[in-house]
């Protein structure tokens, strides 16, 4: 049974580490005590992933704050990758994070640890972040470092066990420019070393002896990858109490992928209890140097990939969300509480990944694309 969710584990653990570590943009103020219970659901491309996420954050003494997050992905996959070379599958990934934030004057320190586990992948990440307010508190500088050590396994092959070493270096800067405008800058370098491909995924190549005209062989990636990402963002407070915000990110890596991301958003309070928001996100990337939808022959080159996440593609996302603040009179210890519903509609269009299930001559099948729905429904309480 093929499972093609390893990127999900890595992505989630990165996100989880950022979640529990205090936001470096909140130097000199520890995050508020709060609890969140979230249900998440992703449906798209034959894949459904849903589950809960729980987050609790509490101050300890005057200058410390601890937080814990428990997150579950329940995956049911019949994606085009799976249908092409394997059978649909279901599995569960569980992740836990712990973090401690400490405040010392205008400096905030954060340490966190995240563990993610599924039946064929275990990931661990330890992070340290520091942020400092400068220049009359108009500027916040943040630095961060993460170290990850993972273990890749393969179901059905007890002997298979490969390590991955991950490191991340972060630099951030936020700047109050005017009483209504804040600008931000972020830079992150990530290096990976170890077994970076998916032990189940295959590439296809032309094979005249096969009735379909093509055959499959295991993919082969380089065992190192270094990426750099730079992001610029702005938040503008509008005169009638609303916020417009935008972000641009440029990404490049040693595998030959270049990507651009643009996000625009708008947040609008309505009365005392409602906050409405909407947004648009555009993403575009070029393919990895060793990616091909169809290789000319078996072992055509040293490195081989047919992972559509490494292909040339673009995506669009429209987002809407609503927050409603409500009171629970019998729970006087709650300062405030909200219920939140967010929906995102995504569209992915691939320029060099073909839908071979649709048939056609090898290399002339229709290009693949799909829509996805993302739901985030959660309750938050401050205490």
């Amino acid at each position, binding site marked *: 049974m093929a499972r093609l969710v390893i990127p999900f584990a890595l992505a989630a653990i990165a996100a989880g580490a950022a979640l529990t570590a205090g936001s470096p943009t*909140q130097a000199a103020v520890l995050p508020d005590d709060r609890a969140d219970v979230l249900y*998440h659901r992703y449906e798209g491309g034959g894949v459904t992933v849903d589950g809960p*996420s729980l987050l609790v954050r509490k101050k300890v003494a005057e200058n410390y704050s601890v937080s814990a997050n428990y997150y579950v992905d329940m995956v049911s996959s019949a994606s085009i990758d799976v249908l092409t070379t394997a059978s649909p599958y279901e599995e569960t990934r569980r992740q836990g994070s712990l973090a401690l934030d400490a405040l010392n004057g205008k400096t905030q320190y954060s340490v966190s640890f995240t563990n993610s586990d599924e039946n064929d992948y275990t990931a661990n990440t330890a992070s340290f972040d520091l942020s400092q307010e400068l220049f009359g508190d108009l500027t916040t500088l943040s630095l961060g470092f993460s170290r990850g050590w993972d273990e890749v396994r393969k179901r059905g092959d007890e002997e298979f066990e490969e390590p991955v070493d991950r490191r991340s270096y972060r630099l951030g800067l936020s700047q109050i420019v005017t009483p209504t405008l804040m600008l931000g800058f972020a830079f992150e370098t990530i290096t990976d070393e170890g077994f970076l491909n998916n032990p189940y995924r295959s590439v296809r190549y032309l094979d005249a002896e096969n009735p379909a005209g093509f055959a499959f062989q295991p993919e082969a990636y380089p065992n190192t990858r270094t990426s750099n990402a730079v992001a610029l963002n702005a938040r503008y407070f509008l005169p009638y109490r609303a916020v417009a915000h935008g*972000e641009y990110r440029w990404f490049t890596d040693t595998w030959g992928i270049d990507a651009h991301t643009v996000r625009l958003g708008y947040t609008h309070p309505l009365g005392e209890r409602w906050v409405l928001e909407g947004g648009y996100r555009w993403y575009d990337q070029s393919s990895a140097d060793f990616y091909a939808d169809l290789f000319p022959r078996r072992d055509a080159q040293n490195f081989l990939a047919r992972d559509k996440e490494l292909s040339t593609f673009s995506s669009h996302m429209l987002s809407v969300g609503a927050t409603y603040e409500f009171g629970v009179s019998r729970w006087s210890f709650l300062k405030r509480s909200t219920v939140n519903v967010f929906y995102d509609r995504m569209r992915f269009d691939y320029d060099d990944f073909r839908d071979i299930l649709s048939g056609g001559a090898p290399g002339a099948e229709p290009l693949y694309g799909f829509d996805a729905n993302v739901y985030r429904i959660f309750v938050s309480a401050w205490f």
Partner: protein
Amino acid sequence: MFLRRIVLVVSLAAATGCSGVEPWVKPYERQNFADPIMAADRNPIATSYLNHVFDAREGARGALGGHGGGCGCN
């Protein structure tokens, strides 16, 4: 090495009197940044999940979240 240089620059900046820079946005002009809707990440649990969705579906990674805010309102 890169991180060490950054820490050195920051230490020097702090030691040589960055705190003496006159803030051009006065503390009493920063009430907009204390408004919850101006927070860079109002709902960390929801943002974290969405970043996870992006990271899982896209080749790019990094420099998401954890930036662009800053309160400066205390």
